[in-house]
């Protein structure tokens, strides 16, 4: 029996939540790791819905050529907020939520090491989200300089974005230190490192990366904030930094990219490693076989985390950095495929000749394997410097990153939601609705994002609001974009049964058996 139903008691007894006031007071003052986990998960899915609606608007705009339902500046705000929200307010915190809920259970700790800091880490997110959402900065999720500078984007929008992300980053660091101390110091007696569940290994690796990478993001955001508000000249070559000398002054926009990607490439692994951890738990359980190559899996997680720090400049091949820098980064990027491949083959070997239980968690896990492999191979392909010159800034990149982040992280997240639903609520979700959700997600996601590969190869640039002028050279963009938009709508509608299932099954679902996956 792997995941017995966990009774949620005690916490309620401390603050009986009979009245609304008591209910609110209970939830804003809780320091219980499971309740904070639920808060993280709930908050993250609210962000997911918000950013998903923005994506629907974007695809609606792009379905037909010419300006249709959005203005140009609205479109820029929407894709920027979509990206920032999905990454910083959905995928990263939602896995922090699952980690909060399950890491202490899996290692046998009674709570996280620092319960109040845990609560602080969560409560910093809603204000940060409010800042980012009211700001609606139109600078992409990457906030490239000098666009982010005050002379190109005046007003408080970018300031709110910068400050919001600093708050998110601080929350991540607090959470990271808390997770590390919990995992390193609070394992049940006898649980040495090589006995930890692989989900815990994944969270351990992820949070080590958070602690080392996020402060660099905090520092670069702070410097950009100083550039905007004090008039320092870290990233700008003109304007605030040298009306006296004119162009050619020393600030360096590429500096932003180095420091930003020093965080944001590891961030990709911060988003996908916990999903891999989930898959590590789902596949053996649902195949009724122990995981194939436990130690290799743990070391592969660590390997991905380590190499993940050595590849950031592959986002910058076209910026004119020297070839002696580019070449090693290209090689290291390709090296990431090795530990990733170890994991993919070990998962397949785990399923091989297993007695497979084809319930929704397994469907999403298999979906993860297929889609993440496509995304990963895209990555190796694009790591090649000459190819990157062609693909940079095209829709191909959008396709790649969504295969990794949606096909990888979010499919793993859905697997986690279904797999652990009985543990968290004592109820079963509706299997038929779960399978419908999987089918619509799989078809919709491939329609929108696989098509984007061809849109990109046809020559359409990402962050593009309108492609009317391109149609005379590449008429195929018209039907490709329509197809992608239809796929996006299917993907969007496909999430409705998920939310219905997750909310309604809490009360209407069958009571979960002792081992729901027996």
């Amino acid at each position, binding site marked *: 029996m*792997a995941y017995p139903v966990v009774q949620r008691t005690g916490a309620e007894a401390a603050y009986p939540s009979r009245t609304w006031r008591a209910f609110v007071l209970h939830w804003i003052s809780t320091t219980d790791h499971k309740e904070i986990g639920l808060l993280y998960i709930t908050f993250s899915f609210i962000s997911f819905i918000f950013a998903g609606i923005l994506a629907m608007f974007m695809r609606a705009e792009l379905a037909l050529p010419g300006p249709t339902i959005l203005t140009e500046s609205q479109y820029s705000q929407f894709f920027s907020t979509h990206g920032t929200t999905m990454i910083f307010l959905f995928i990263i915190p939602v896995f922090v939520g699952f980690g909060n809920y399950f890491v202490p259970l899996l290692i046998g700790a009674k709570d996280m090491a620092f319960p109040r800091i845990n609560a602080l880490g969560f409560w910093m997110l809603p204000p940060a989200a409010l800042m980012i959402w009211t700001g609606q900065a139109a600078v992409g999720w990457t906030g490239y300089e000098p666009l982010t500078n005050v002379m190109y984007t005046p007003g408080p929008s970018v300031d709110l974005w910068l400050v919001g992300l600093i708050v998110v980053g601080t929350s991540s660091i607090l959470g990271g230190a808390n997770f590390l*101390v919990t995992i390193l110091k609070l*394992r049940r007696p006898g*649980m040495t490192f090589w006995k930890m569940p692989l989900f815990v290994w994944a969270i351990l690796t992820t949070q080590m990366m958070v602690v*080392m990478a996020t*402060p660099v993001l905090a520092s670069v955001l702070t410097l950009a904030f100083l550039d905007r508000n004090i008039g320092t000249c870290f990233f700008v070559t003109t304007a605030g930094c040298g009306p006296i000398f004119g162009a050619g002054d*020393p600030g360096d926009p590429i500096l932003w990219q180095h420091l930003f990607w020093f965080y944001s490439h590891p961030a990709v692994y911060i988003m996908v490693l916990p999903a891999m951890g989930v898959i590590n738990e789902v596949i053996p359980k649902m195949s009724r076989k122990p995981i194939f190559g436990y130690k290799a899996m743990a070391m592969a997680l660590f390997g991905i985390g380590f190499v993940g720090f050595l590849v950031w400049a592959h986002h910058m091949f076209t910026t004119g950095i020297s070839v002696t820098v580019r070449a090693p980064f290209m090689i290291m990027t390709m090296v990431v495929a090795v530990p990733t491949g170890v994991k993919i083959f070990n998962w397949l070997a785990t399923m091989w000749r297993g007695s497979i239980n084809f319930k929704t968690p397994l469907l999403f896990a298999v979906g993860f394997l297929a889609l993440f492999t496509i995304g990963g191979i895209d990555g190796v392909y694009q790591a090649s410097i000459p190819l990157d010159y062609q693909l940079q800034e095209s829709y191909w990149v959008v396709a790649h990153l969504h295969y990794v982040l949606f096909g990888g992280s979010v499919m793993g997240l859905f697997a986690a939601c279904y797999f652990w639903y009985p543990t968290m609520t004592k109820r079963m979700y509706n299997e038929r609705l779960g399978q419908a959700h999987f089918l619509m997600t799989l078809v919709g996601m491939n329609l929108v994002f696989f098509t984007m590969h061809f849109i990109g190869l046809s020559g359409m640039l990402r962050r593009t609001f309108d492609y009317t002028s391109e149609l005379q050279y590449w008429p195929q963009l018209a039907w490709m974009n329509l197809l992608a938009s239809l796929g996006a709508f299917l993907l969007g509608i496909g999430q409705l049964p998920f939310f219905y299932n997750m909310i309604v099954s809490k009360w209407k679902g069958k009571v979960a058996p002792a081992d729901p996956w027996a």
Partner: protein
Amino acid sequence: MEEHASHAASAGDAGHAEHHGSIWPFVLAVAGGLGFSGLATHEIPLILAGIAILVVGVGGWLWQDSRGVSFTVKGNYEERPFAGISRRKLGMWIFLVSEIFFFTGLIGAGLTLRLRVPSCPSVGQACWPEPASPDFPLNIPLTAINTFVLITSSLTMVEALHAAQKGNRAQMKAFLFATFLLGATFVSIQVYEYNKLFFGENLTPWVNSVRPELGTFGTAFYAQTGFHGAHVTGGILALLFLNVKAWRGKYGKDDHEAIELVGLYWHFVDVVWIFLFPIMYLIGR
């Protein structure tokens, strides 16, 4: 795999009987939200409200501690290979690792700016002043003295911990107070120097019309030393807290973890200065 999970989950159940909550994390987050959004929108009242609520939040957090409300997770745990290192100390070291990366970002930015400009004097463009030249805006002897002040404060800090470990509370209190004074001296000298540089040498963090060529240097100088100074100020507040507690009879032979943790932070800030001092004051372009 299956065996751990079942064992773990049952162990997890047991702990919730002693659960209690804390409103103060929420209060601190509200303070952060108000203060930071005030910073972004240049609304002074929001910033002031944020600071006020921050004081309330920190006060409440410490008040909860002083009432003996413990959030420590009890139980027997597998601690190898970290046995003997307390959770707080491990947490402090992990925090210091993140601080290393924060300062790496700042120092890396300063390094990049330095490499983009020629050395001074250079006509009609930004340049980097040379420490050996008479035009060098920074005051090397004064800051060398300030460096001694900070190093001395590290010595008194570690002696305070040593005294506490030996159980010599009088010595401990004296060394803690000395550390606080030396830290305050460091910041005071830095403020004095900033004042001299800003108004006397026209060294500003932006390009000014009097010495426009020093805009780049000023940017790098104020960002790096400013964030270091902010960290020292944070350390001084922590030392103030330790001093007050020590006067009231806290800390001694069996209770010196707080001194050790603040000490770790204090020495880390010293290490940052050990690198920043030659980088900003002694190395030219």
